C-alpha cells in the first residue's frame, strides 16, 4: 500500500512537472514566435501638393518618419485615385531643398529620380533611414502629376518604405483635397498722380543795400510728385515784372543774368534736387540758379523755369529771388512782387 501510493504520488509529480514544463516551453516558444508580417505604420507622413486646384499641374513634397529598424531601399508614393501621373521617369526628378517642410524635416538620403511608375504608384530609390527621423524630398516638375479633375475631399494615398526585396517596412495613409481653384486673382489700378506744393511763400528780402546783391533768406520751394511717365514742367510769372514800390512809384526791373553791385535788377534763380523717380530735371539756362545771383527775369507771362523727363518722387525746386540796387534806386519800404508758379505732369 505504501509502495503503491508512493508510486502514484510519483506519477502525479511527473505529470504535473511535465505539464509545467510544457506550459513553460509553450511560453518560451510563444515568446520567440516570429512577429506578424503586418507592416508597421510610419510615425508620420506628409504629402503636400503645391497646387490643389482641379487639373492643376503640381510640384510637391513627401515626408515620412520610419518606425521600423530595417534597411530601406526604396519608397513608394501612391497618389490618390484620379490624379494624373506622368509615366516619364525624368519628370519625377527630386530635390532635397527645404521648401517649407514641416518642423524636423531633414533631407531624405539616397532619394533620386523615380525608378518606376505603375498606375498610381511611383517608386523612388532610398538608402537606409533612421527610425524616428522625419525625412523629406520634393518632386520638382509640374509635369509629374496633375490634380484630379473634380473637386473632392478625402483624396487618400499612401507612402510606403520598402527593403531591398521590395517587402514593405513601414506604410501610412495620407489625405488631401482637390478644390475648384486654389488661386485668387488680384488686380489693381494705379491712377495718374501729380502733386505740386509750394512752401515758404513769403520771401522777405529785408533792407536792400548797394553793397551786395540781396538774396532770399528763406527761398520758396516747389515740390513735385508725379507718376507722369513723360515728366513734368514748372512755369513762373510775376505781377510786376520786377519789385515795385507803389509809394515811390518805382520798379526794380526784372533782369536775366547774373546780378552784381553795379546792376539794378531782380531775377529768379532756380536750383533742383530729387529723392527718386525716373525723371531727369533740367533748368532753362536763364533761370538756372546754380551760379550765385544768376536767374531769369520774370514777366507777367508764364515762362518755363524747370522740367523733367520722367516720374518724380520728392522733386524740389528752390526758388531764389536775387535783387541788386543802385544808389539811385528810389527809397521805399513797400517794394513788392507776387510770383505765380504752376506745374503740370506730362502723362
Amino acid at each position: 500500500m505504501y509502495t503503491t501510493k508512493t508510486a502514484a504520488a510519483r506519477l502525479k509529480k511527473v505529470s504535473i512537472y511535465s505539464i509545467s514544463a510544457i506550459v513553460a516551453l509553450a511560453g518560451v516558444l510563444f515568446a520567440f514566435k516570429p512577429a506578424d508580417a503586418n507592416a508597421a505604420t510610419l510615425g508620420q507622413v506628409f504629402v503636400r501638393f503645391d497646387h490643389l486646384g482641379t487639373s492643376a499641374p503640381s510640384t510637391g513634397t513627401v515626408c515620412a518618419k520610419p518606425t521600423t529598424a530595417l534597411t530601406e531601399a526604396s519608397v513608394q508614393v501612391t497618389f490618390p485615385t484620379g490624379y494624373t501621373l506622368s509615366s516619364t521617369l525624368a519628370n519625377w526628378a527630386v530635390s532635397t531643398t527645404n521648401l517649407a517642410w514641416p518642423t524636423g524635416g531633414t533631407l531624405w538620403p539616397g532619394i533620386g529620380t523615380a525608378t518606376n511608375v505603375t498606375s498610381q504608384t511611383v517608386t523612388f530609390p532610398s538608402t537606409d533611414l533612421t527610425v524616428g527621423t522625419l525625412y523629406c524630398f520634393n518632386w520638382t516638375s509640374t509635369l509629374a502629376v496633375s490634380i484630379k479633375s473634380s473637386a473632392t475631399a478625402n483624396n487618400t494615398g499612401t507612402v510606403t518604405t520598402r527593403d531591398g526585396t521590395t517587402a514593405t517596412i513601414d506604410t501610412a495613409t495620407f489625405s488631401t483635397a482637390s478644390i475648384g481653384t486654389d488661386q485668387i486673382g488680384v488686380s489693381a489700378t494705379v491712377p495718374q498722380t501729380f502733386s505740386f506744393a509750394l512752401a515758404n511763400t513769403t520771401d522777405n528780402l529785408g533792407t536792400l543795400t548797394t553793397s551786395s546783391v540781396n538774396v532770399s533768406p528763406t527761398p520758396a520751394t516747389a515740390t513735385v510728385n508725379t507718376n507722369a511717365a513723360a515728366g513734368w514742367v514748372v512755369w513762373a510769372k510775376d505781377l510786376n515784372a520786377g519789385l515795385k514800390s507803389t509809394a515811390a512809384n518805382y520798379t526794380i526791373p526784372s533782369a536775366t543774368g547774373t546780378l552784381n553791385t553795379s546792376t539794378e535788377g531782380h531775377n529768379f534763380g532756380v536750383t533742383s534736387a530729387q529723392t527718386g523717380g525716373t525723371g531727369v530735371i533740367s533748368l532753362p539756362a536763364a533761370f538756372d540758379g546754380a551760379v550765385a545771383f544768376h536767374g531769369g527775369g520774370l514777366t507777367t507771362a508764364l515762362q518755363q523755369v524747370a522740367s523733367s523727363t520722367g516720374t518724380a518722387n520728392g522733386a524740389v525746386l528752390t526758388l531764389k529771388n536775387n535783387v541788386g540796387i543802385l544808389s539811385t534806386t528810389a527809397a521805399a519800404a513797400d517794394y513788392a512782387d507776387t510770383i505765380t508758379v504752376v506745374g503740370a505732369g506730362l502723362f
Partner: protein
Amino acid sequence: MFWAALFTLFAAIPTSETYTMPAYGFDNGSGATSSANYQLRGATGTTGGNASSANYALAPGIRASTTARVPAAPTLTNSDNSYDRLTLTLNVAGFPSDTKYAVAISSDNFVTTQYVQTDQTIGTNFAASNYQSYAAWGGASGSVVLGLQNGTTYKVKIAALQGGATGSAFGPTATAATATPSVTFGLSTSLTSTPPFVATFSSLPAGAVTTADATVSALLTSNAERGGTILVRDLNGGLSSSAKSYTISSATADLTPATAGYGAQITAVAQASGGPLVALSPYNGTANNVGSLTTALQQLASFNAPINNGSLTFALMAKASNIAPAATDYADTVTVTLALSF
C-alpha cells in the same frame, strides 16, 4: 510546427508503464479521475488537512492557487474620428486597487492577437510588463492605443492579475473602428463662395495704404493628428503691370511709413473645435503691417492637432509710391494650399 510539438508533448504525458491517468482533470479534488485501486485527487484549492504525519508526507507538487476574476469588457471609442488611435477605458468595478491589467487587441476577431504595450503602441510581445495598473491605463479617463491601422475595426479584451493569484483569462470584448485620414478644404472670398476668386484694388493712389475689396478665407476640417499648415505664395512677388513693366514689390513692412508695398495680413482665425489654428508671423500683424508674398510658399497659419471647421481670413493691402506708373493692369495671382501631417 510549434503546435504540433505542443500536441505531441501533451499526448505523451498521461501514461506510464504501470498507471494511466485518463484525463487532465485535477482541479476539483472530487476524485473523478480514478482506477480500480488508485485515485488522483487535485490539490488546487485545497485549504485544509495536514500535509504530513509520522508516517506520511505530501511531497512537493502542485501548489494551491487562485485565479483572478475576469474583467468586464472595457470601453473602446473613437470620439475624435481618429485614424491611428482609439481610446480605451477599463471597467474595473469591484477589483482590488492593486490589480493589474493586460490588454489584448485584434483586428481579425482574435485570429491573430496583439497586446497593448507600455508605450501605448501594439505589438506581439506579451509579458508581465504588459500588466499595468488601472491608473497606468489612464484611470477613468482612459488611455489612447496608438499605431493602429486606419479604416480598421479593432476588438480589445482585458485580463487581470492580482496579488498571488494566477492571471485571469481575457474577458469579453469591446469594439471600435478607426477612421481614414480625412480633409476637407475650400477657399472663398468675402464677395463670393464660388470661383473665380478676385480681389481688386480699384485705385491705388500714391502714398495711401489701400485694402483690396475682398478678403480671402480658407476653411478646413481634418483629422490629421499632427496638424498642418496653410501656405500662400504669389505669382509675381508683387503687383505687376505688363503695360508699364513695373512691379509694386511685395514686402514685409508697415505700409504706413513705407514708400510702397504689398502684402497679406491675417484678419481672423477660428475653429469650431480642435486645432487651434494659429496665425503666423509676419502675417499676423495689425494696422497696416503686412507679410510679403513671394513665389515660394510661405506659412500663413498652423495647427498641431485635428481641427474641425477651422477658418483663416486674410486681407491684401497695398501702397503705391509716387512714381509707380499709372496703369490699369496691375495684377497678381495668389495661391493658397494646405499641407497636413498624418
